């Protein structure tokens, strides 16, 4: 069963690609019809997603000025605060009005459920930062950004989870950082994860789980209940804003079932966005957009990259997987199955920023980006585990199993196959057409429709370009008009980037899984300039 589910995504992707190629050659008429149906579905989906991208962007804009700390302090005196929000004067600004309305709605739901959160002063933050070869500069930027969240410093425990196999210079660097910043936090631990523990693979999840277990002992010693701890697992290059933990605390307090939830911020890759080649900028912005869109569908949202969750939930499910590369999405599925489908991801209306892979040279960056995407695509390893978990679990409803299973499967196949189909195979019937097909009406009309559909998709792309330019951070140095124009036009690289730096790595990962060739965890090249 495991092998069947491991084979399915890769087999489906290859069947779609090669099947349409074969159809284009042997039955170009049928292939042309399939291409039209497929392209139409794609362009409608593109518009559908663009609407949600826009809505998500609007939400992000709405909550940009929100005083999370004020809300948290208000929720500490819940009843009075609720009354105040009911009576509060209507905001003139529409954004603030919407934000206030959503906040009040959430408070009413909490009040109705009777599940009031602990006071904010009783909530602790555990931040686990895994390190293997990252330079101290990268990690220090992370710690500094956490340190800017002044309201929670005394309730924050930092754990630098250092791999035992890391170089001595890295270990020493982490120790120096710990010594330098310890006083600012409640505690600052450096935990060395021994190499080669039984049952563990050389993956990030093994390291972070070991660190979390160490932290659990700390909480037990200090008699801090796990229910009051929010654990955040950050990549080493993560940089958070000064209101991140306030927002996280608010989302935790506001959540109806806070111990059956993960909290997912919107990852953006802005740390070094203007210092990397254009193609890297485009693809990582695309990744951020994808996450933005995902946040509009909390029912099907899955944790990705840096995320947070209830520490109690983490302990209950047995920590992150110690033998899976994609521990970030894996923890969601583990929790979902463990809690019989009573688990969700709460989207946080706040971003956290990471580095784009930068290997020094243009070609090095291409290779690094490819490997990173392949590692992300290795999330397909979740599919067989999830499906087997669903089959074994009798409590999760069939509808939810179908919904999640289909989304997981369809997402992987679309990721790997869609760009190939759009970029190459769509044109194949016209190119490979023999005389028989080229003397049909369909031959002349198919190309016309394909062109029209690409024209429509350009409109959606323009919308994406505008949003991307607004979402991107201020440029650190002034660029000439020419370079600003180039930065805008970079988005027209999308067809090539989608194929070579998105679809190909995904297909690579699925094929490896299909052929039972396991991947090792690959640490991205990230540098501080």
């Amino acid at each position: 069963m495991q092998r069947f589910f491991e084979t399915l995504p890769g087999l489906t992707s290859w069947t779609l690609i090669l099947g349409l190629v074969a159809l284009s050659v042997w039955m170009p008429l049928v292939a042309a019809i399939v291409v039209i149906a497929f392209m139409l579905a794609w362009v409608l989906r593109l518009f559908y997603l663009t609407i949600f991208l826009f809505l998500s962007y609007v939400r992000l804009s709405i909550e940009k000025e929100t005083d999370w700390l004020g809300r948290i302090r208000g929720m500490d005196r819940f009843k009075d605060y609720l009354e105040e929000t009911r009576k509060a004067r209507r905001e003139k600004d529409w954004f603030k009005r919407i934000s206030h309305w959503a906040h009040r709605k959430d408070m009413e739901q909490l009040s109705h459920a009777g599940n009031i959160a602990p006071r904010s002063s009783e909530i602790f933050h555990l931040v686990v930062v895994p390190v293997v070869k990252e330079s101290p500069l990268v990690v220090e930027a992370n710690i500094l950004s956490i340190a800017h969240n002044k309201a929670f410093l005394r309730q924050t425990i930092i754990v630098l989870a250092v791999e035992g196999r890391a170089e001595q210079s890295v270990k020493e660097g982490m120790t120096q950082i710990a010594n330098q910043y310890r006083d600012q936090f409640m505690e600052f631990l450096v935990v060395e994860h021994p190499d080669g523990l039984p049952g563990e693979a050389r993956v990030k999840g093994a390291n972070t789980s070991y660190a979390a277990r160490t932290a659990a002992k700390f909480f037990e010693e200090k008699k801090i209940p796990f229910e009051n701890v929010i654990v955040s697992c950050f990549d080493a290059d993560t940089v958070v804003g000064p209101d991140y933990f306030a927002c996280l605390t608010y989302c935790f307090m506001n959540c109806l079932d806070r111990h059956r939830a993960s909290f997912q911020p919107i990852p953006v890759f802005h740390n070094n966005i203007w210092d990397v080649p254009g193609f890297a900028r485009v693809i990582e912005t695309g990744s951020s957009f994808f996450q933005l869109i995902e946040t509009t569908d909390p029912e099907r949202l899955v944790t990705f990259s840096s995320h947070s969750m209830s520490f109690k939930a983490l302990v209950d499910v047995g920590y992150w997987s110690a033998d899976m590369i994609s521990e970030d999405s894996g923890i969601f599925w583990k929790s979902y199955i463990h809690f019989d489908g009573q688990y969700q991801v709460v989207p946080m209306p706040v971003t956290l920023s990471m580095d784009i892979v930068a290997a020094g040279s243009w070609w090095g960056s291409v290779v690094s980006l490819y490997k990173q995407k392949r590692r992300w695509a290795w999330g397909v390893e979740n599919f067989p585990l999830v499906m087997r978990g669903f089959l074994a679990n009798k409590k999760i409803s069939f509808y939810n199993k179908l919904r999640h299973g289909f989304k997981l499967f369809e997402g992987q196949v679309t990721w790997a196959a869609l760009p190939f189909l759009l970029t190459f195979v769509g044109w194949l019937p016209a190119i490979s057409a023999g005389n028989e097909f080229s003397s049909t009406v369909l031959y002349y009309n198919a190309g016309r429709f394909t062109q029209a559909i690409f024209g429509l998709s350009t409109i959606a792309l323009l919308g994406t370009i505008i949003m991307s330019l607004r979402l991107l951070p201020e440029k650190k140095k002034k660029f000439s008009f020419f370079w600003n124009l180039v930065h805008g036009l970079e988005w027209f690289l999308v067809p090539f980037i989608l194929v070579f730096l998105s679809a190909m790595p995904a297909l690579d990962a699925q094929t490896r899984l299909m052929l039972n060739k396991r991947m090792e965890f690959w640490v991205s090249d990230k540098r501080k300039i």
Partner: protein
Amino acid sequence: MKILRKILFYLFLTAYLILCPLIILYALGYIFTPKVEEGFAKTGLVHIETLPASAPISIGNRRYTEKTPATIRNLLSGRYDVKVLLPRYRPWERKVEVEPGKAVNFEKILLMPQKLKIQTLIASTFQDLWPVPKTRYLVLKGGETLGDLKIFEWRNGTVRSMLPEGSPFMAARCVRIFTVKGSSFVLIQAKAPSGMKFLGCQLDKDKPEVEDLSVLFEKGEPQEVLWEGSRPDYLFARYGQDLSRFDLEKMSALPDFLTKIRGFGLFKGKVYALCGSLIVRLGSNAKRGEEALVEKGIFLENLFRGDEKYQIDFISNNKICFLGERGEFFSNVLPYRFVDGGVSGYQTDSDSRKVALWQKERVGVLDFERPEHKKEFFERGPEIDWVFEKGKSIRQAYFVYDAAYLLFCDEDKIFLARVGERDIPPEKLVRVREQSGFFYSEKTGKLYYLEPSRGEFVAADILPEGITFSGVISELEKGTQEVLP
């Protein structure tokens, strides 16, 4: 957001379920029309591309706003008159049968101007015109002597004498000019007071260069002379059944280089010869007797029956054409024997995939790349598509506009015929001087010929100006000349 998501999802899904079948049906040619009983019908289309473009189209009684290249869609099945009427050009008209779901494709329609633009290139009287095949040179014969021969370079429009000034052979009478396709070297056979002369002439030099090679031709007048390249090391001359090799560097002759041959050809430094019904090969610089057997057998015996002589021509790496004395035309491609006799010449297109060949009464095209039709019971290979079969004295043909047309000369009239439209009579373009040659260059799009009344050398525009490369080439060559010391 959840509700909005659901609403939008079902909205888009509905839109897809409605639009998808409608678009597919439209793509297949179905339209809703009150003109038919069922209310919807499967239509066909007509696709037209012309040169020059932007020509108005009318189909039936209706004039369309689209101009060529255009696809006229939503035509109910039936018979239509398709007309293309570009001002100052001859009208183009065809009757087509439009079938449901089918496209009628008219690609590469060459519209001819009502009045051809003719330019006088040399206002002198000439008797004949010989193209040096696959080169940029034409030989113009102004009179009987070698001094009357001119070389015209059609790429840049320059003309000069064949012989250098003061050449002792000026007064010699031109008997014959041997040329090889793609070579700027020509061999002139001339009759001088001192006897028959054979002169080698380099056409691509800035100043004319002639070398007297007569000493090599001791055996007399050969039936055939071939060489390779523009600076040949060897000439190969056939005397009856014997092949002699002349070394131009050493100025020596090797008679009987090969004997008892029925024909020979040169390809990539090797000599291929038909000896009886064997095909042999040896290097151009090989010694006598070093020939190697290439092919033999009953098959060749059947193919090359009798003892006729053949010209062997390697038109590409893997295609060989054989032209017999009696006009038989063969190839090494199935079905091998294409014409049993009467072929007086042939011309390949620029890719050497097609051959235009002509007999006295007809001219046709042999397409080696013809795709196989799956419904054929017998595997046939390429066949000759006879474009025009009512000729009287066809003597030359050229491919025009990517081999979509043929220009040919019949009884001193130049015609333009479209390949694949046998039923449409060819268009008469111009008259040429009696029994003179003509030349067409796809690169310049011009037809070069001798005007019938005064014998002036003129050029007529066949392809519209602006789409040919001649202007670009001139500019590039000028640039190159400026750079070279």
